[in-house]
């Protein structure tokens, strides 16, 4: 390049004297950073130049001519030269699928064109349009094969899976979540870190790619690289957005009149007197309260994100520093919000044969949690309780302790949580202080032989705080004791990796070898204290609490992992590519004889377009077939020390009020637990047309996790608690096809591109236990031959219309009467009409697959002159949901009901599917049945964004030393197309056994926001 720099002034001199003038301009990326050494060519001519370190350039040209600006890693940019004296400002956008792009894989990088395994590169620019605190949520709809479930809870948990279920997660510790590797460091809970710092994301999906992360790679690996400093003068960036959030939908529930009609019918049908509050003849009849709880409990929330970056440096040391603040206050009334302050700094440099780098990140976050009380269940959580709250209750009631309204046991009879009151009276938050330190050093010992040491320390100090005062919110919600609780923990992980890599290129042969040893030590510890008594605790410290009521518990434990890894990449003439992986991993969680697992992977690729004997049409720029097979281990689902049973010393008793210590083995353990292993097979085709203007990838995979640790249910009669044992008995198979399409077009000032993906997923449980005992969940059954978490319950056949209908049908209940639901008998022994043949648990059947069968996402983005515009559609379908909120709202009991309930059966309203309401529900009309199973398919208009970049000539830019200023407005979750009757078909659940059970997930908010991106 330097030679060219010298050459160009000569050319310019040579050209002087023609009717041309010197055009000045600058080349910057979308963040406003100067692009160094970009090539600027005059269209139709052979004059070109390159940009300087500050991105500036000069070229001789005439106004009206077009300049073509190109640089590696960026889209080509055409710009017309304006009137005399107008500087040319070129804004380059990053290429999303350039073949020369470097893709970060485990312990190294490869060029995209040399990939053999299944690795997807995320278009971070598209993904970042989603306003969220969590990188996992950002990925929803962006990558084929990645499924994401989230909710609208501020700072709420996000469930993410790659290519389906890979673990039965026996300890419920989120074991289906992929491994996140940030700048080479394995990270749990990546939501602690600001998404603004992300430079690139790649998703490793098959075993040939993930095997190198054998210890935790089975669910897939997401590799994140954060922004690094670039050589040059200090550069400042500032990105910010502020938005308003609300719930986009209202569930039609009953008002006072409707509620009293429904609940009175239920009382009358059960032969009960009317509750005084609902009895017009009672002095306690309520006629002047009609609370719309959705109106009272919901508000418009605020979301904001601010990020300030500083970067620069020299080759010996570049730096990048960013400060970020994220805040999301909920849309539910109350003080709850999620706040996160983070600082991220990275240094890196190179001197001679030594490269080095370090990263330090610190985050403080505080998440306010919604209504939870210690002794008084808020049934279905705040969302369900908000909907089932009865309209005859006032929100506020100064006569009750705490000042919030509540139901009366004798007058109202309904148990009804006042979520506004609970949210405000109960203090419940979680605070996290996280520090991540990472340093690495790479030495080129001999030419092409490199040794790298990478060490990290990651510690999170957390505190969970809960305080609930004494309060009276009516029937059941009467707190006669304060309850005060805190958890403290400081889990930390140390990681040490040593790798040796060797690269050899000879003639048409390219060989890359990698060998390494890794060691990871995780230290878990917590102390939990609680206090509860009838005294007042005005000053909330344990010191002020009644000493005898303070209790404390503690846990600590260590687990370690060692890994030996090796990888070979061989490339012959850019035509044939081979990768082989090997790992041998050790884990302290297993007994010594089961400690180690060996895992291997192979993959190959054939670049057909580079074959000389095959003549492809000129339009085809890439044609590549890939395939791989491999296995990866997993020990993460197992807890510390779970291979050994232990003595519980808290099984205490007392004799005549004197404490007596009790010890026993409570839980059974399997001493033979060992590594899970996931085997994947992957075949793929990559196609590039019209010089990569159109790219297309199709992949097919089979992912077979086996030896999965399962909470194998035990009969109660064995006497273990829990009545299950964690043992390696599970196997599943996930198969699917994934299609990714990219298209980009530049047409003068108008450029646009489309990135679309579509994937399918079929899950089948192959093995569950010694006798393949099914696992029952909430309205679900996970059984061999079916998919995980399939809905399971009764099929209904309408309503009984006459007493004869009841007696002619299999016995359901002694109190079954016309207007009750007919449940279909599935068990042949129950089919016969006999008083003592009945519908029972054996008459349940499978009611639908809960894992969506297909997923898709479409990003369309366009630029016209200084305007940019993007649309993102995302969806999934083919799944069923058990709408437990709807079931609660159609129970015919004394909570509030859905408007549909008013069409209940009576002897004069027989043409209906809604059974008669009856208190106590003797026929079990509300049991798990297809009445509440709904189609979970949806398509969302997830994002629509319009932006405008101010020209460099704009006063605000030149006056304020700015290099770039873009402003935009954006809408998130604008439209949902779905038949689902709940708030949101995109809801959070355990994602596994109860995948399809929606019991009041916080609906994803609709957001309208305004943002600024500036560079200085």
């Amino acid at each position, binding site marked *: 390049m330097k030679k060219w720099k010298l050459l160009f002034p000569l050319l310019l001199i040579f050209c002087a004297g023609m009717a041309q003038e010197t055009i000045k301009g600058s080349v910057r990326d979308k963040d406003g950073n100067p692009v160094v050494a970009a090539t600027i060519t005059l269209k139709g001519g052979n004059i070109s130049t390159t940009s300087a370190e500050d991105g500036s350039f000069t070229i001789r040209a005439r106004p009206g001519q077009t300049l073509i600006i190109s640089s590696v890693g960026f889209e080509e940019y055409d710009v017309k030269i304006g009137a005399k004296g107008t500087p040319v400002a070129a804004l380059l956008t990053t290429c999303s699928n350039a073949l020369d792009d470097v893709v970060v894989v485990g312990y190294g990088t490869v060029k995209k064109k040399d990939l053999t395994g299944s690795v997807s590169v995320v278009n971070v620019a598209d993904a970042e349009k989603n306003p969220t605190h969590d990188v996992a949520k950002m990925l929803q709809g962006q990558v084929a094969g990645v499924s994401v479930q989230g909710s609208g809870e501020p700072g709420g948990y996000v469930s993410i899976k790659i290519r389906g279920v890979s673990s039965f997660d026996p300890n419920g510790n989120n074991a289906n979540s992929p491994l996140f590797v940030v700048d080479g460091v394995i990270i749990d809970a990546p939501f602690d870190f600001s998404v603004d710092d992300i430079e690139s994301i790649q998703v490793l999906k098959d075993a040939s790619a993930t095997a190198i992360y054998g210890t935790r790679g089975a669910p897939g690996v997401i590799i994140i690289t954060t922004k690094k400093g670039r050589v040059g003068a200090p550069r400042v960036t500032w990105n910010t957005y502020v938005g308003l959030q609300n719930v986009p939908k209202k569930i039609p529930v009953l008002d006072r009149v409707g509620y009293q009609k429904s609940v009175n019918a239920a009382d009358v049908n059960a032969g009960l*007197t009317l509750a005084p509050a609902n009895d017009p003849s009672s002095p306690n009849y309520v006629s002047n309260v009609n609370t719309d709880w959705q109106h009272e409990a919901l508000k418009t929330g605020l979301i904001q994100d601010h990020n300030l970056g500083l970067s620069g440096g020299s080759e010996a040391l570049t730096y990048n520093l960013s400060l970020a603040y994220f805040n999301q206050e909920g849309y539910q009334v109350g003080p709850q919000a999620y706040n996160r302050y983070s600082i991220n700094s990275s240094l890196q440099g190179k001197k001679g044969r030594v490269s080095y780098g370090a990263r330090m990140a610190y985050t403080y976050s505080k998440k306010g949690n919604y209504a939870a009380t210690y002794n008084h269940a808020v049934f279905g959580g705040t969302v369900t309780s908000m909907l089932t709250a009865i309209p005859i209750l006032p929100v506020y009631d100064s006569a009750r302790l705490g000042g919030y309204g509540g139901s009366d046991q004798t007058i109202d009879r309904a148990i009804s949580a006042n979520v506004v009151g609970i949210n405000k009276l109960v203090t419940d938050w979680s605070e996290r202080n996280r520090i991540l330190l990472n340093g690495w050093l790479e030495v080129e010992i001999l030419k092409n032989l490199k040794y790298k040491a990478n060490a990290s320390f990651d510690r999170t100090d957390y505190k969970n705080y809960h305080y609930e005062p004494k309060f009276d919110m009516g029937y059941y919600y009467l707190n006669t004791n304060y309850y005060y609780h805190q958890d403290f923990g400081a889990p930390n992980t140390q990681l040490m990796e040593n790798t040796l890599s060797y690269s050899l290129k000879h003639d048409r042969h390219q060989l890359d070898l990698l060998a390494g040893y890794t060691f990871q030590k995780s230290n878990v510890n917590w102390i939990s204290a609680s*206090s509860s008594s009838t005294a007042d605790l005005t000053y909330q410290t344990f010191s002020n609490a009644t000493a005898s009521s303070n209790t404390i518990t503690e846990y600590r434990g260590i687990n370690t992992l060692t890994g030996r890894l090796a990888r070979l990449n061989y490339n012959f003439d850019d035509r044939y590519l081979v990768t082989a992986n090997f790992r041998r991993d050790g884990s302290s969680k297993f007994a010594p004889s089961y400690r180690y697992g060996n895992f291997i992977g192979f993959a190959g690729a054939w670049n057909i377009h580079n074959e000389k004997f095959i003549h492809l049409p000129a339009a085809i720029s890439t044609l590549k077939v890939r395939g791989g097979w491999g296995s990866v281990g997993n020990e993460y689902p197992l807890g510390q020390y779970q291979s050994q049973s232990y003595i519980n010393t808290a*099984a*205490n*008793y007392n*004799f005549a*009020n004197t404490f007596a210590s*009790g010890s026993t083995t409570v839980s059974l353990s399997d001493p033979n637990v060992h590594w899970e292993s996931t085997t994947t097979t992957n075949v793929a085709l990559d196609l590039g047309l019209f010089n990569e203007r159109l790219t297309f990838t199709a992949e097919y995979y089979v992912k077979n996790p086996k030896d999965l640790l399962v909470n194998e249910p035990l009969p109660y009669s064995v006497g273990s608690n829990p009545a299950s044992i964690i043992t390696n008995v599970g196997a599943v198979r996930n198969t699917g096809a994934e299609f990714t399409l990219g298209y980009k077009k530049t047409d003068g000032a108008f450029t646009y591109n489309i990135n679309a993906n579509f994937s399918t997923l079929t899950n089948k449980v192959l093995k569950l236990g010694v*006798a393949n005992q099914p696992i029952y969940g909430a309205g679900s059954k996970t059984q061999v031959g079916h998919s995980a978490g399939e809905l399971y319950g009764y099929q209904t056949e309408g309503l009984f219309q006459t007493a004869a209908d009841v007696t002619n049908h299999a016995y359901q209940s002694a109190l079954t009467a016309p207007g009750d639901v007919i449940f279909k008998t599935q068990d042949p022994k129950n089919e016969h009409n006999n008083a003592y043949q009945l519908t029972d648990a054996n008459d349940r059947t499978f009611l639908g697959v809960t894992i969506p069968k297909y997923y898709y996402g479409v990003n369309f983005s366009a630029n016209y002159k200084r305007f940019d515009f993007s649309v993102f559609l995302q969806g999934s379908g083919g799944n069923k949901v058990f709408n437990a909120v709807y079931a609660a709202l159609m129970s015919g009991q004394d909570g509030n009901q859905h408007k549909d309930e008013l069409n209940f059966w009576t002897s004069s309203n027989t043409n209906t599917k809604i059974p008669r309401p009856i208190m*106590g529900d003797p026929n079990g009309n509300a049991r798990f049945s297809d009445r509440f199973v709904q189609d979970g398919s949806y398509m969302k208009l997830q994002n629509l964004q319009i932006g405008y970049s101010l020209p460099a000539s704009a006063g605000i830019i030149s006056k304020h030393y700015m290099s770039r200023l873009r402003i935009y407005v954006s809408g998130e979750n604008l439209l949902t197309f779905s038949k689902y009757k709940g708030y949101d078909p995109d809801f959070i659940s355990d994602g596994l056994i109860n995948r399809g059970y929606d019991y009041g997930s916080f609906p994803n908010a609709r957001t309208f926001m305004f943002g600024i991106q500036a560079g200085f």
Partner: protein
Amino acid sequence: MKQFNLKYILSVGVSLILFSCEKQLNQTNPNAQTSATFWKTSTDALAGVNACYQMFLEDGGYMRFSPVLENVEGDDVRSQSPWTAISNVGKFQLGTADLSGYGWTFDEYYQGISRCNQVLTYVPGIEMDADLKNRVLGQAYFLRGLFYFHLVNMWGSVPLPTQVAEVAPQSSPAQGWARVISDLSTAAGLLPAQYSTDGGVDSKDLGRATKGAAMSFLGKAYLFNKKYDSAAAEFKSVIASNVYSLVPNYEDNFTDVNENNSESIFELQFSVTAGGTDLQWQGIPSPTWGFYSARAITFGGPNFGWRDVQPTQTLLDEYRQEKTVDGKIDPRCLATVLYNDTVDTHAANTPMYQTTFQAAYSSSPAYMSDVYCKKYENWYGNKPNEYDWKSGINERLMRYADVLLMYAECENELGNQAFAAQYIQMVRSRVNLPDRQAEFAGYTQAQLRDQLGHERMLEFALEGHRWDDIRRWGWLSDATKLAWLKSRDPEFNSYIPGKELLPIPQTEIDNNPSVKQNATY
């Protein structure tokens, strides 16, 4: 040279790391002793048997659901609970789709059996004081027998594991009763009559199982199997032991002011002071757990408890049938049920908690005229209500009065009506009811059976015996008696044959291939 040094240092460094890290794969649990190293000392043995008792304090035990399951079916009790796990018990409407309540009880009794099996497996091998070892083993046999008594009595055909971690097949009820009788007989042979005289680490532990407790339950097991001879022999021995006597004040059996008294043969120890402050529902025991009972809030009347369980009007009517010798209402009525009792007592009002019955329900005629539980409630103390969920009243599982009336029943069945009559009157005399011993002595066997039914209902209302009595007397299969029960408690209208047993939790059937569901479920 520089290159060589670097390589040398690196390779040494790397191999050091490799070597030291593999060692770190050995990690021992710093939180708890592994099971393999336990059961070595007498302290372990004693702590092991204490843990067996703890199971009775959990949700499925006597903290809440055992009293619910034992009481709600009877004609002395009904339930209007909004929670079907409770209200469906009395209506015989429990289903297999939801095992809340009865499933917890089933589960927790087996956890108790697992703990007993650990003691019975490992304690014999411990070198320790022989007498203490016998007492520990005796208690484990007793508690296992008691857990099995409940399981066989409530579910019928159940698995009978006697080994640690055993998946046992389903047994017949006869095999189950044989297990109960065997365990209780063994216990009776090992246990002391009283602990206070024995010395040692477990002396003064009122509440531990005694020989008298084992014999009483053994007699009860024989009685439930109509082995009247064997039953009578056990009861006779208990009476002859002279350890027990009726307390003068009937109410002392149901409050926390006179616990572990002379009438108490076996009682479960709840306490508001001895343990932690968390409610002990179920799960893996935590040191924060207290020894609270949630019976009082569950059975308590409206605005003081949840009123999930309440007495029937029938019970109140039954109390009103016979007055004391001085013309007053049966004092057992006033100790058992809360109602607007001024009609019977002629007192100005009915004290309860910090107020009076009349003041509490003045605004609601329907509640004023209803009947609520008083036995095992904290209505007498200084609590304002039961809403802290924390009751410390011990649950008396075996009272001397029960031994006397069961003894009378055996003698009646054996044809000794005159002999039986004295024990019936003994129980009546304690509450000042007229002396009708001579009249009862002249009753036929059938007449005396009915009289015993009446006497037992009044003496043991809300103590979970009525439902057992109805079943073992065959009233459910006797059309006349069943119709009579329906007239007394409409909840019997939805009874069908088979529902006298609880459903076996579906998870047991799913995971123990030999287990079949009880008929009609």
